[in-house]
């Protein structure tokens, strides 16, 4: 199939199945459908809009002219072989690449309509609203409680508000309510509520990763970026993280880089495929990408046909 001949996916052809023998359509209408080009348009609002993004590390052109809209309250998976630029792309979304001195970034990244690369953007504020979870769990060597409370305390978010004062709650009570809420949201509360003052490094790998997600939630982000969050975990811990990602997407916008294509297929609403050379080759609804990709190169990559 050439890249310009895109059969329609189920979106506009699905009807209810019946037990009747198959009905047929004229060849003409089938041909017409095959030749229609369907740009990927998702339903709902765009949380982040990336336009013509180029990233260079010195002379290396790591990401080439990437444009992509990320819908809110959904899971967007970024897949592709090592070195294809997917992690570079992810790090552009909260300006983590600014920390690499040789990196140069062209293009625009809009977050709720605002260009995050324009002068004067408060990076602390940006990274609070666009949080990140890394491949290896990296809790602070502090208690479970302090891991969650650290961010809000630094940001000054734990100052007792009017409501708490009216209800006569202390700062400690406010903090503990937040700790409980975040641990519950990260599906960890039931496993750790009797040892909140234990050192976080004593938790299992899967628990540490969920603690890192809880820590990310504590500063009330809108977008959560995840760079292979389950690659160091066993299947059960991975399943818990995957369930969690699905739950989180009801409230947050999740963008996840993963090497595990089945994981991308399982948990994401839309999938972007980057291929070697920093090119975004295909972006669409996950079921379409895995069932009937438009690009032959994507077909070969996800079927494991690349040597």
């Amino acid at each position: 199939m050439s890249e310009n001949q895109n059969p329609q996916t189920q979106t506009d052809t699905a009807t209810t199945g019946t037990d009747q023998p198959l009905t047929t359509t004229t060849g003409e209408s089938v041909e017409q459908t095959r030749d229609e080009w369907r740009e990927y348009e998702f339903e709902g609002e765009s949380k982040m809009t990336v336009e013509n993004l180029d990233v260079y590390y010195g002379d290396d052109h790591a990401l080439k002219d990437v444009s992509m809209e990320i819908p809110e309250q959904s899971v967007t998976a970024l897949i592709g072989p090592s070195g294809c630029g997917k992690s570079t792309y992810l790090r552009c979304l909260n300006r983590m690449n600014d920390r690499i001195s040789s990196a140069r970034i062209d293009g625009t990244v809009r977050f709720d309509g605002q260009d995050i690369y324009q002068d004067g953007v408060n990076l602390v504020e940006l990274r609070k609203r666009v949080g990140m979870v890394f491949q290896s769990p990296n809790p602070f060597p502090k208690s479970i409680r302090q891991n969650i409370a650290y961010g809000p305390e630094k940001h000054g978010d734990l100052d007792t508000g009017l409501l708490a004062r009216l209800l006569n709650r202390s700062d400690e009570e406010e903090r503990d309510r937040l700790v409980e809420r975040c641990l519950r949201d990260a599906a960890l509360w039931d496993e750790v509520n009797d040892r909140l003052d234990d050192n976080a490094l004593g938790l299992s790998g899967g628990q540490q990763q969920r603690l890192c997600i809880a820590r990310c939630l504590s500063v009330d982000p809108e977008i959560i970026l995840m760079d292979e969050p389950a690659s160091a975990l066993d299947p059960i811990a991975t399943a818990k993280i995957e369930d969690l990602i699905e739950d989180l997407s009801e409230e947050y916008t999740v963008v996840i880089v993963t090497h595990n294509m089945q994981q991308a297929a399982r948990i994401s609403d839309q999938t972007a495929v980057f291929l070697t050379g920093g090119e975004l080759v295909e972006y669409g609804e996950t079921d379409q990408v895995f069932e009937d990709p438009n690009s032959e190169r994507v077909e070969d990559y996800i079927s494991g046909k690349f040597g």
Partner: protein
Amino acid sequence: MIAVPRKEYRESLAALRSEVESMGTAVLDQLSRALDALERDDQKLAREVIDGDERINQRYLDLESDCIDLIALQQPVASDLRFVAASFKILTDLERIGDLATNLARYALAGRSDEIAEVQIQTIGETARGQVRAALDAYVDADSAACRAIAERDDELDASCQNASEAVVRELIAGESDRWEIERLLDDVSRLLLTIRDLERIGDHAVNIAARTLYMDDGDPKLIY
């Protein structure tokens, strides 16, 4: 692209394709022999067809299990997934065509099918068989154009079956047979109507095979819905 990895997986996919083709050929053979048994009123051949269905059913179960293994162990995606999903469905259609061939053989055992000269069972049978043959070829060659042609030709088969059924009923009404003659004809006529209906169903299964093949070949689900 250099050497294609996942050798065992590639070999399993290729084996599935040739096994489905081979089962299809066996089903076509059953169908041809059932039609011959009807034409020649050959009771021995009819019994062979009925006995042969067990082998078709066993192959169906084995290949169904192969498809499930492929999905569970290799997790196919994209065109590989469409191929396995289409094959899985096509196997069911082939098995059903095998059952319908057995029905035809049973009708041959029960009596003659040429009581009404206007109804050309062999002609309709050959059309239905031709559709199955074409659908199997389209599957093996992944030929989308052939799939669409099969779907279009089904209307002709449906029309032939409709005409034949009407001819049977007309003959029954118009015939000047007395009451006893009608009683005698009743079994033959019912059987003839069932034969026509089963041939029409064989054609429907051929269209199902074409529809799944079209989906397999270029992701077009149009004929399925």
